[in-house]
């Protein structure tokens, strides 16, 4: 069964790119625009990986990570946070909240696939 | 009748034209208006339908019958007989409207009946002789003879060039 990825980003461009790349790599991709939407998706869908932006309206990525780790349905699912170059503080925040790893924006398709495969077998 | 238009080759070409080689063939739809037989380029014809009532447009020349509804598209329709000076056609459900495309516009042409699909080669098309009696001669692009009778080829472009329609509108207004 195809692995299912939830991509959370308020930017449609980013969601599109993630979706495009990962569906090309054989993933099922579901989308959410912010943390709140993401949690509602997770409430009804079982995913194998979460890729989330940090800066989002309603609920930011760090809070989302905390929520997921504190919840029951997806607490063991790998979570990658999207950061920008030099966003070390963000990486650390994400990590401290319980993220599995990060992807630096902008990314190439294979960098994304590589990182995803690194955390999601 | 629609099918007939869309697949003319099987019916026409199989008969005679193999004898003529390398000629440039054209296909025309011929139709009757009054007692005369006209034809237009088949490529311009989109479909043929029975006459339905139109909504008249105000202040248009007599030959403008108004607009009809072609599956949601508003199509201005013209009485060809009237256009050729034969007087307004008294329409019946047996009259036929040829839907044609002229200069990217879709128009309807009211004719008495559609007769045939003609496949003719270039050399079968004769030029129109100078005829002063017909002011409509400028709309004619050629004459072909089919089974001893004369069919006049119409140029829809000339008949419905936008300048003409516009000027007609202006005069009426």
């Amino acid at each position: 069964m195809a692995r299912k990825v939830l991509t959370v980003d308020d930017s449609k461009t980013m969601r599109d790119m993630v979706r495009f790349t990962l569906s090309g790599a054989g993933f099922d991709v579901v989308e959410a625009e912010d943390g709140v939407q993401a949690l509602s998706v997770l409430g009804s869908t079982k995913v194998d990986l979460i890729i989330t932006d940090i800066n989002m309206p309603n609920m930011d990525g760090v809070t989302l990570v905390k929520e997921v780790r504190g919840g029951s349905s997806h607490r063991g699912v790998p979570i990658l946070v999207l950061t920008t170059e030099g966003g070390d503080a963000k990486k650390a925040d994400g990590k401290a909240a319980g993220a599995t790893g990060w992807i630096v924006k902008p990314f190439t398709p294979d960098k994304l696939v590589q990182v995803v495969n690194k955390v999601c077998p | 009748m629609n099918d007939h238009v869309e697949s003319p080759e099987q019916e026409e070409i199989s008969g005679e034209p193999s004898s003529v080689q390398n000629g440039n063939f054209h296909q025309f739809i011929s139709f009757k208006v009054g007692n005369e037989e006209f034809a237009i380029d088949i490529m311009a014809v989109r479909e043929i339908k029975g006459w339905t009532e139109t909504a008249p447009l105000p202040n248009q020349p007599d030959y403008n019958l108004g607009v009809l509804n072609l599956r949601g598209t508003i199509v201005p329709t013209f009485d060809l007989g009237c256009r050729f000076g034969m007087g307004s056609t008294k329409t019946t459900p047996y009259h036929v409207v040829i839907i044609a495309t002229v200069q990217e516009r879709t128009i309807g042409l009211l004719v008495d009946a559609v007769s045939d699909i003609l496949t003719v080669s270039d050399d079968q098309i004769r030029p129109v002789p100078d005829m002063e009696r017909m002011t409509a001669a400028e709309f004619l692009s050629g004459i072909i003879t089919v089974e001893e009778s004369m069919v006049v080829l119409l140029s829809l472009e000339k008949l419905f060039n936008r300048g003409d329609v516009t000027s007609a509108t202006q005069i009426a207004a």
Partner: protein
Amino acid sequence: MTGSSFNADDLAQFKQTFFDECAELLADLEERLSSLQEEAADSEALNAIFRAVHSIKAGAGAFGFSQLVQFAHRYEALLDRMRDGLVEQNERVADVLVRAGDILASFVEAAQSEQELGEDFGSEVGDEIDLLLAEIDGLESVLTSEEEQSDENSDSEGVQEDQNKSSCTYLIEFVPKAELLRHANEPLLLIRELQTLGDLQTECSLERLPTLGAMEPEDAYLSWMLTLKTDKSEEDIREVFEFVEDDCELKVSAIAAKDSGDGSLSFQIIEEVTEESEEDQATGTLKSEKPGAQSKAAETSVPETNPSDAPKKANVAAPKAKTASTPAQSSGVSSIRVDLDRVDRLVNVVGELVIAQSMQAQEAEDRQNGHEFLMNQANEDMSRIVRELQECVMAIRMQPVKSVFSRMPRLVREVSSKLNKQVRLLTEGEQTEVDKTVIEELADPLTHMIRNAIDHGIESPEEREAAGKKGTGAIKLLARHAGGNIIIQVIDNGSGINKEALLKKAISKGIVSEDAKLTDEEIEELIFAPGFSTAQAVTDVSGRGVGMDVVRRNINKLGGRISVQSVEGKGTCFTLTIPLSLAVLDGMLVAIGAEKYILPLASIVESFRPLEEQLRALAGGGEVVSMRGEYIRLIRAHHLFNVPGAVTDPCQGLVVVTETANGGKVGLLVDELIGQQQVVIKSIQENFDPVPGVSGATILGNGRVALILDIEQLKSMPVSADNWKSSSSEPLEQQEASPANGEEQRTIAPEAMTDTEGMQVPATV
């Protein structure tokens, strides 16, 4: 990692999304920034601004728009400091932020049109941002950011790697902290990844494993000692552990510099390898270690970690991705974002429609069985559902006017600074929704009107102060719903319309005759006359060859009206009334002779059957009908349209009183009203030339076409040239008493000239 290896088509598709998104983000940014000038931003506003800039930057990075990225980066840095409360919000900061927003928009525009902006474009604002940043955290910030930069360079270029090409053996001690597993990091994956770097021997230590009772199921207890023989650098190895750096203790040390290795050390390790590798252990050499089934799996699922392999991989990935998605659409496609709720509703209704339809089909079959009742029920359901479906679809197309309004602050800033005027823009009702096609058509007229308002309406600060006004002028942009229309007003508190100057100009241009007597409203109407411009000199601001006549024509094209009210010295108000949708119209079906026509319901005031004494023929052929003391011009549509068999005696028919664009009234004589109905507007002009008096057509329930009447045009259609001349040359006796008369008997008819090109309407009498 700016290089992208999406193929061109896909990239173009993403770019389109990106620019669509940029447009939205910039509009939002614009709006938030303009409110920044009014009051300090709260954290929510700052966050939103930051997110907008951040998203633009991130997307731009993906497409390699480096100028845009660089600028956005500085902008973002400033905003980030602001979020952290390190920057005091003052006028200067607000100004920099606003200008930076404009620059950012320019960069996006340039990127979209594939133009290169000058190297130093925006550098002024950029420098100011840098200056602010420097003030905030001293020179340090500049230095650290440079350091970061160079760090990354060394990372990606892998200097050490080059120095150390030959194979080397590393001893890796990997001791996960308890929480590693809870972050969903998986030691097995890391080990597999290491395997791809070279020959790996693993040894698992159970040392830290507690007793079963003490074991926390989600904690990590195992640790590993790994031996890797690889030609990769230590950096590469550490990169494998990149994500778990903080979640583990990691020691990497080179134990053998050359292929041969230190025999004793190697062996020592071999003795400690785990069960899995026992086979290899038996052979006793590191070299022969060929990954078994497990590592084969790893090979297929774990791609190379070496970034230098990226291009090769991409070639493989791209075509694969291509087949998985539909081909890219052409980049010109416009898209709208729609609330999910609306789409859901639409889908549900369509579902119902399908059911009702099948019901109907079923019933048609069973008809012989005498189930008429059910048939009727299905029909009723069907019509209800179809109606709802239509509403849903319309709703999808509805968008707040905000998307147009939000472009205006920037315009106001640009224009006012060019003209050295001070103008504040206020907006109200920007959430008011209207069909997307209408929104698109609104941008030009509004732009023009606002430009006009600043250019001609708002005075210079000196003039204003001299007139006892505040130096800063204000323009208010207002939207609201009224019936099936949206009403948009552009109100300025400038100098108003100088009626004297306007009239003089109209006379000098020959638009009005010198002795014409015009009411104030009529004079104001003159600004909609073609080729009219009251500016003393043509400025590069509003003198772009379009006048208010074009604005009016555009608004009319939308089926709307525009009117103006002005008080000299106080200001001007333009009011636009536009139907909410171009696709449907609330209409009144009327009969004239055998023909049926649609009148826009919104323009109908009332209808009545006049008594004979209410009618009055004017000398020269004009006719009026009086209604409660008001004289209303009577228009005989059957006459104008030459419809045979129509009711010609108004006392036998009905007079439908309709309101015209400028608030006047005309009465249209019809045979009867048939009923009110919503109609779908069809264009006649798609296949024919414009027909005077007719704005479009629709298809009635019986499949026949009905024309939609255009009151504005009907009003100005002469019955005959003679009538027109004589009726207007002899002033009506009640002219003074009745303001409506002035309207109807106007000697100038600007709309006549704009609406009906090609028609000979006397301009002056």
